[in-house]
C-alpha cells in the first residue's frame, strides 16, 4: 500500500504496521477503508478511552451506562429515560443547514434505536465572534437546520445554550441532545447474538454521501476543508420520521435480536460493532444493499454515511413480519447477510470476497493511546482589579444585551417547542420541563458548560459545568438523575490540549461523583481547530432530572407583587473570568469561580425541598452575569419589577459569578419560614428585597423600567441577524 494512501486514510505508519500484523498480510483498499474509520478518533476514542474510564457511570438509577447507542435511566413505574448528546461540528461548519440537520437526525436515531420514542431535543451551540464574517451565516444555517429536521420529526426542541467567542471562528460547535422515553422491559441493544440469524438493512438507500465523514471529524481543519463539501450528507427528516414509526412498530413485536443505527462510518461501524458486542462473525453481501446510485464500489458502500438507515439482526423466520411493516412505511428492506460463528467480518461484492477481517481487530484491537499531556496549574486567586466608578444601570443594560446573555428567542421561536403537548416549561428558563406523557411526572433537561472557565482552569471549569447542570435541574424542582457529556476539544496530539482533556475529565468525574450524577452516555469531538488555533475546551454537559409532580415546578419569572426575594448561597464577589470583566472591563482573565461541591449539594437540596414543599415556585440559579442579571431576567420573564435592599452595592457583589447560588421569591409568611429553615440547615440565605411595580430599583443607585431591560435583552439577536445581507436562514430552509 502506498504511504500516501495510508496517510489519506488518517492512519499512522505504526497503525498500518499493526493492521498488517493483525491480518497477516497487506490490507486491500476496502479493508484499509474499514480500518481507517473503525480506528479513527471518532469511532475508537483512542486518545480519550483510557481517561474516560475514570468517569463514574453507575448508580441505582442507571440501567444502561456508556457503550450502547444511548444511556438508560430508571424513572419509576416501569418507565425509563433514554438520552445522549452528540456533536456534528465539522459538517456544520462546512454546510451549516445540512450539518446541523443530520446531527439532529443522527442523535434521534441513537435514541430510538434503543426502543425509545424521542420526546425532547436540546442543543449546545458555539459560534465565532459576532463580527466575524461567517458567524451570521453559520447561526442562521445551523438554527434553520436544527429546526428543519426536528420540526418535521414532531419532536419538540425545548432549549439549549448558545455562546459566541472568537476561538470558534473557524470551528463552530453543534452538539445536539435527544431525550426519549421507553418501557424498562422494552429496551433494545446492539449485540448481534446467535449464529445464522438474518442481518437486515432498513431505511433509505445507500448513496455516495459523506464518504470519510468519520475521518474528517478526526482531523484538523485546513484552509482547503471547504473543498470537501461533497462529503457532507443531506438529511431527509421525512424518511427518518417513517423510520422512527416503523422501528417502534417492529419493536412492539419480538422479532428483533439487535439493532444499531448507521451513523458515522455507516455499514462498517454498525456491522462491526454489532458483531463485536455479540461475539459473533458477520457475513455481508453488498449486492443486496439498496443503492441509490449506479456502479457503487464495495469501498463506497462500506464507507457511505447516507442518513436514515438502520441495521438489525432478526430472529430467524421473522423477516416477513419486519418486511411488511417497513413496506407499509414505504421504506427499503433487505436481508443483506447473516451472523456467523467465525468471528470474522466477511464482505462479498459481485461474487468475490472483498474484505475478510477478524471482528476483534476492528474493536478490541483498536489502538488506545496514552498521549503525553501538560496540565495547566490553577490560576492564582488574587483579587481582580476593576474600575469602581462605573454606572450600574449602564453595566446592567450592556450585559443584558451582550451576545452571551441576551435573549435567544430569535433562535427558539424557529423550533417547534410545543408539539407533543408536554412542554410544560418552554425555552428561556433554567431547565426545560417535559411531562412524561400521560402521567404527572416530568423530566427536566438542561445543557451547560462555561468554556471560558474551562480554558482558565480545566479542572474547576469542568466541575462548574456539571454543577451548573445539576443546579439548573434543581432550580425547576427536579432531582438530578444522570448526565451525558459531549467533550469538544482541539488536537489531542498537542500536550497542552491533551492536558485540558485530562483535567476536564477529572473535573467531570469529581463533580459527578460528589453529586451522585453519573455519566450514562457521551461523545468526544477532538481536532476542533483551524490553522493551529484550538477552540476553548468545551465539555458540554447534558443533564436530566425527574419531577414526581409536574404541578410542583418552579420557573424564573416573578409572579406576585409583594413576594419576598431571598438570595440563597454565599456571595464572595468572584469576578475572575466573569462576563462583567469581559463585557464591561474588556478583559478575559483571573481565576474562574470556585466550585465547592459539598456546598453546591447542600444549597441545592435545600432549594429543591422548598419547591417541593410549595414554599416557592419562583427560582433562578445564579450563573453568567451574577446576581443582578438573574434578578433582571426574573423581572423580564414575569413582567414585574423589584425593589432591592442589598447589603453591598459594588460590582463584585452585583455581577460576581460565585457558584451554588439561587434567587427565590416567596410570599411574605413563607419567606420567614424559608429564612429560619435555612439558618437551621446552615444554608446562607438573606432577604434582598421584594417584587414590586414595573421597575427594578436599588434605592439611590438604580431605577430602570422592566420594559427597558426587556428591549435591551430582546433586541440584540434579532438586529444582529437582520444584518445578514443574504438572509440566508430563509434561503437555506427551503
Amino acid at each position, binding site marked *: 500500500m502506498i504511504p500516501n494512501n495510508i496517510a489519506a486514510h488518517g492512519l499512522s505508519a505504526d497503525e498500518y504496521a499493526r493492521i498488517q500484523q493483525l491480518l497477516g498480510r497487506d490490507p486491500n483498499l476496502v479493508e484499509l477503508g474499514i480500518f481507517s474509520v473503525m480506528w479513527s478518533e471518532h469511532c475508537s476514542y483512542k486518545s480519550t478511552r483510557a481517561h474516560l474510564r475514570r468517569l463514574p457511570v453507575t448508580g441505582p438509577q442507571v440501567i444502561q451506562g456508556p457503550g450502547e447507542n444511548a444511556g438508560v435511566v430508571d424513572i419509576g413505574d416501569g418507565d425509563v429515560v433514554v438520552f445522549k448528546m452528540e456533536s456534528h461540528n465539522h459538517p456544520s461548519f462546512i454546510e451549516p443547514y445540512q450539518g446541523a440537520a443530520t446531527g439532529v437526525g443522527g442523535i434521534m436515531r441513537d435514541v430510538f434505536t434503543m426502543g425509545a420514542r424521542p420526546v425532547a431535543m436540546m442543543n449546545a451551540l458555539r459560534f465565532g465572534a459576532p463580527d466575524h464574517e461567517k458567524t451570521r451565516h453559520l447561526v442562521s444555517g445551523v438554527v434553520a437546520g436544527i429546526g428543519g429536521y426536528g420540526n418535521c420529526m414532531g419532536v419538540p426542541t425545548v432549549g439549549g445554550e448558545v455562546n459566541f467567542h472568537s476561538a470558534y471562528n473557524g470551528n463552530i460547535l453543534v452538539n445536539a441532545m435527544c431525550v426519549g422515553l421507553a418501557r424498562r422491559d422494552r429496551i433494545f441493544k446492539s449485540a448481534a447474538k446467535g449464529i445464522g440469524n438474518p442481518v437486515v438493512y432498513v431505511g433509505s438507500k445507500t448513496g455516495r454521501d459523506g464518504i470519510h465523514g468519520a475521518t474528517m471529524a478526526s482531523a484538523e481543519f485546513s484552509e482547503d476543508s471547504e473543498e470537501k463539501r461533497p462529503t457532507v450528507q443531506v438529511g431527509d427528516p421525512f424518511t427518518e420520521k417513517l423510520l422512527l414509526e416503523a422501528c417502534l412498530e417492529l419493536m412492539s413485536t419480538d422479532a428483533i435480536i439487535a439493532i444499531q443505527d448507521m451513523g458515522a462510518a455507516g455499514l462498517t461501524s454498525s456491522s462491526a460493532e454489532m458483531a463485536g458486542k455479540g461475539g459473533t462473525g458477520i457475513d455481508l453481501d453488498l449486492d443486496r444493499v439498496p443503492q441509490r446510485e449506479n456502479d457503487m464500489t464495495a469501498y463506497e458502500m462500506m464507507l457511505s454515511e447516507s442518513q436514515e438507515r438502520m441495521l438489525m439482526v432478526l430472529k430467524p423466520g421473522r423477516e416477513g413480519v419486519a418486511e411488511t411493516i417497513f413496506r407499509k412505511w414505504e421504506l427499503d428492506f433487505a436481508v443483506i447477510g447473516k451472523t456467523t460463528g467465525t468471528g470474522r467480518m466477511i464482505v462479498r461484492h459481485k461474487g468475490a470476497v472483498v474484505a475478510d477481517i477478524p471482528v476483534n481487530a476492528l474493536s478490541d484491537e483498536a489502538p488506545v493511546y496514552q498521549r503525553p499531556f501538560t496540565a495547566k496549574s490553577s490560576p492564582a486567586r488574587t483579587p481582580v482589579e476593576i474600575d469602581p466608578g462605573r454606572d450600574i444601570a449602564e453595566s446592567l443594560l450592556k450585559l443584558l444585551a451582550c451576545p452571551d446573555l441576551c435573549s435567544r428567542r430569535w433562535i427558539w421561536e424557529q*423550533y417547534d417547542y410545543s408539539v407533543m*403537548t408536554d412542554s410544560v416549561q418552554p425555552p428561556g428558563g433554567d431547565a426545560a420541563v417535559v411531562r412524561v406523557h400521560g402521567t404527572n411526572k416530568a423530566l427536566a433537561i438542561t445543557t451547560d458548560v462555561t468554556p471560558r472557565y474551562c480554558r482558565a482552569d480545566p479542572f474547576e471549569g469542568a466541575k462548574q459545568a456539571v454543577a451548573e447542570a445539576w443546579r439548573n435541574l434543581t432550580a425547576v424542582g427536579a432531582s438530578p438523575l444522570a448526565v451525558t457529556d459531549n467533550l469538544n476539544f482541539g488536537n489531542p496530539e498537542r500536550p497542552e490540549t491533551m492536558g485540558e482533556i485530562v483535567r476536564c475529565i477529572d473535573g467531570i468525574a469529581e463533580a459527578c461523583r460528589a453529586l451522585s450524577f453519573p455519566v450514562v452516555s457521551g461523545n468526544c469531538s477532538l481536532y476542533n481547530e483551524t490553522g493551529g488555533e484550538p477552540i476553548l475546551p468545551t465539555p458540554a454537559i447534558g443533564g436530566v432530572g425527574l419531577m414526581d409532580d409536574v404541578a410542583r415546578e418552579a420557573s424564573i419569572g416573578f409572579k406576585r407583587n409583594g413576594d419576598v426575594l431571598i438570595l440563597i448561597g454565599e456571595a464572595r464577589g468572584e469576578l475572575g473570568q466573569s462576563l462583567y470583566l469581559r463585557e464591561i472591563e474588556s478583559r478575559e482573565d483571573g481565576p474562574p469561580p470556585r466550585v465547592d461541591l459539598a456546598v453546591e449539594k447542600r444549597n441545592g437540596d435545600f432549594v429543591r425541598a422548598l419547591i417541593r414543599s410549595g414554599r416557592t415556585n419562583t427560582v433562578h440559579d445564579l450563573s453568567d452575569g451574577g446576581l443582578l442579571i438573574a434578578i433582571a431576567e426574573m423581572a423580564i420573564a414575569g413582567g414585574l419589577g423589584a425593589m432591592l435592599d442589598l447589603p453591598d452595592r459594588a460590582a463584585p457583589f452585583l455581577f460576581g459569578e460565585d457558584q451554588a447560588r439561587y434567587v427565590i421569591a416567596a410570599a411574605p409568611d413563607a419567606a420567614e419560614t424559608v429564612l429560619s429553615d435555612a439558618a437551621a440547615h446552615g444554608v446562607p440565605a438573606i432577604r434582598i428585597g421584594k417584587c414590586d411595580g414595573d421597575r427594578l430599583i436599588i434605592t439611590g443607585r438604580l431605577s430602570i423600567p422592566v420594559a427597558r431591560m426587556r428591549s435591551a435583552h430582546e433586541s440584540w439577536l434579532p438586529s444582529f441577524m437582520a444584518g445578514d445581507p443574504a438572509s440566508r436562514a430563509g434561503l437555506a430552509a427551503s
Partner: protein
Amino acid sequence: MKCAVIVFPASNCDRDAHDAIMHVTGTPPQMVWHGDSEVPDVDLIVLPGGFSYGDYLRCGAMAAHSRIMTDIRRKAGEGVAVLGICNGFQILTEAGLLPGTLMRNAGLKFVCRPVELVVDESQSLFTRNYSRGERVTFPVAHGEGNYFASDDVLDRLEAEGRVAFRYAEGENPNGSARNIAGILNEKRNVLGLMPHPERACDPLLGSVSGRAMFQSLLEKLS
C-alpha cells in the same frame, strides 16, 4: 360524537389531536391511515398538523392526493364536519376543499409561539361556544402559514362570514392576508386554521382556549 384522525406519512400532531379530543369528549377518536380507501362512519374528521411527505414539493400537496382524500371529499360534500389544523389546513386548500393557499411565512422563518386570535365568526359548528370578537390564545408552529387568496375570494369570505379566526392586530406571525388565521367552506362544515387549538386544552401548557372548539363540536354533533 364519533371522530377520526387521519394519519399521513409524517403527520406529527396526530397524537396531540387524539389526546385533545379524548380529553374534551371522553371518547378516543379512530386513527385512520391515509392509504385506506374509506373513513369510518364518523361525525368529525380531523386532518392533523405535521409535515406530510416532508412538505416536499409544496406543503400538503402530496397528501391532498392520498387515497383517503377521495372519501373525505365525498363526506365533506355530504356535510360531515372536517377540521384541518396547520398541515391539515394546507392539505384542505391543496385538495380544493378550502379556497386560497398557504405560502411561505413573510419573515421566511418557521415561527413557534402562542398568538392571540380574534374569533371573527361564532356561527359555525366549530366556533359556536365562542362569542364573536372573543380573544383566544393558540400556539402557532409553521413555516408556511401565510394565507393568500385573490381579493375577490377574500371579499367573498368576509362577506359570507367565513373568516372564523383572525390574528389579533399586531400578532400576525406570517403575513397572512387580512390577518386571516382560519376559514370555513361555503357549507360551513369544513374549517381550516394554522394555529393549534389542540395545543391549547391543558392549563399546564398555558392556555385552555382550544377546548371550546371541541366542546362546540361535541354539543352539536352528539
